């Protein structure tokens, strides 16, 4: 059955996430407004600047609506980079407007300014013996604490950089920047399981 997965189209790799979702068998939909949000069964919040994205989401009423759907309907959301911050319950330092329903603490720009942005290969637990995942970290955040309900899926340099909690999935890196679609496939599968479609 068709699964319509939204991509929050405020900033960042909207086109790339849509391409990956299509390759993973979902129907991608751009989400800018509440009306758009009502047309989708799940959502990806891409990277960009969390202060900007959080503020513009709040202005459109998207934060409240996403929060209510996550709490009441197990609405699956995947947040990458800035999206991770938007989903984090706690944020170190200045905290942008956010959904805040995942029991993690996010440290913004934990690796430093752009000169410290990097790419690497990551072992991701749910992919078992498959090859490592090419991960690009751009002014990325780090998860400095996670609650008992959160499952870490990948770590780098001693910190958790990918995790899930119920229908929520986060990664500090950008899976859409490589040709590897396994994380998008994993999310689409998660959406199907959660919503039983």
């Amino acid at each position: 059955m068709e699964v319509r997965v939204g991509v929050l189209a405020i900033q960042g790799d909207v086109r790339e996430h849509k391409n990956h979702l299509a390759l993973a068998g979902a129907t991608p939909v751009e989400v800018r407004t509440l009306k758009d949000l009502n047309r989708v069964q799940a959502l990806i919040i891409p990277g960009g600047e969390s202060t900007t994205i959080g503020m513009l989401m709040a202005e459109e009423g998207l934060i409240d609506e996403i929060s209510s759907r996550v709490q009441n309907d197990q609405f699956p959301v995947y947040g990458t980079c800035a999206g991770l911050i938007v989903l984090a319950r706690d944020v170190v330092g200045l905290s942008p407007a956010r959904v805040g329903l995942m029991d993690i603490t996010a440290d913004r720009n934990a690796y430093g300014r752009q000169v410290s942005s990097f790419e690497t290969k990551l072992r991701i637990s749910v992919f078992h013996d498959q090859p490592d995942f090419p991960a690009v970290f751009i002014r990325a955040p780090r998860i400095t604490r996670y609650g008992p309900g959160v499952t870490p899926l990948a770590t780098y340099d001693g910190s958790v950089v990918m995790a899930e909690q119920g229908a929520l999935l986060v990664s500090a890196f950008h899976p859409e920047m490589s040709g590897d679609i396994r994380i998008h496939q994993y999310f689409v599968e998660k959406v199907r399981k959660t919503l039983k479609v």
Partner: protein
Amino acid sequence: MEEKQTGTFNVKAGLAEMLKGGVIMDVTTPEQAVIAEKAGAVAVMALERVPADIRAAGGVARMADPSIVKKIQHAVSIPVMAKVRIGHFVEAQVLEALEVDYIDESEVLTPADEQYHIDKWAFKVPFVCGARDLGEALRRIAEGAAMLRTKGEPGTGNVVEAVRHLRAVNAQVRRLINTPDDELADLAKELRSPLEIVRKVKETGRLPVVNFSAGGIASPADAALMMQLGADGIFVGSGIFKSQNPEAFARAIVRATLHFNDPKVIAEVSENIGEAMPGVEMATLTPADRMQDRGI
């Protein structure tokens, strides 16, 4: 732990990808930077003077005083960019030492080298460069630019040049895509650009890096116009802090850029925001006044 690589082209171009859909604002003080961040700017450009004032001041315009850049870096959490003179690789080394997030090798400042641009591959910090046409754009990419901005005429509040150059680049990309493979080498020569990059544009059907629009954007409708014409995002120089009400203008331009396809929102955000910056008619500029002709 796996090996990590910093300063790769992927990582450099990646930051520009994250800024897509956003507005980058010129700021000259930490206070302005905070206004920009609160209004939803996706990054700020730290400058000593905005282009309109550079234009008015005349003389040689150089990289900003590092103390201005540092204060602005301290004031905001969004990326901070800064400008260097075309070809002035030592100014770029200074900005890299300050760890700015992006360096703009910019025609707004007085060029330091009339023949060569900076070898941008030599840096870990990514560069954005201006272009008036596809040849300029691809030459800058060949030199290592990880982001482009189609040039307008900076500091004029007149969007006409920004429109001309974005349309020119788009038209040339369309032509390139429709050029048969055996004619690409000739086209590369005509564009004075490496064949390898020309081939890549044909393969992917678009520019290899993000392309913002810059120069002369002074109203929410200007920003939405450039987005509808296909820009990935917007640079606003003098347009914010030379307007009557910078806070209102900044917010309005951010919202118009986000909802660029929704005229009702553009109408709503354009209401009662005060006067835009005063504009300049192109015909009144002498050739020496035209910043866009620098570094081509």
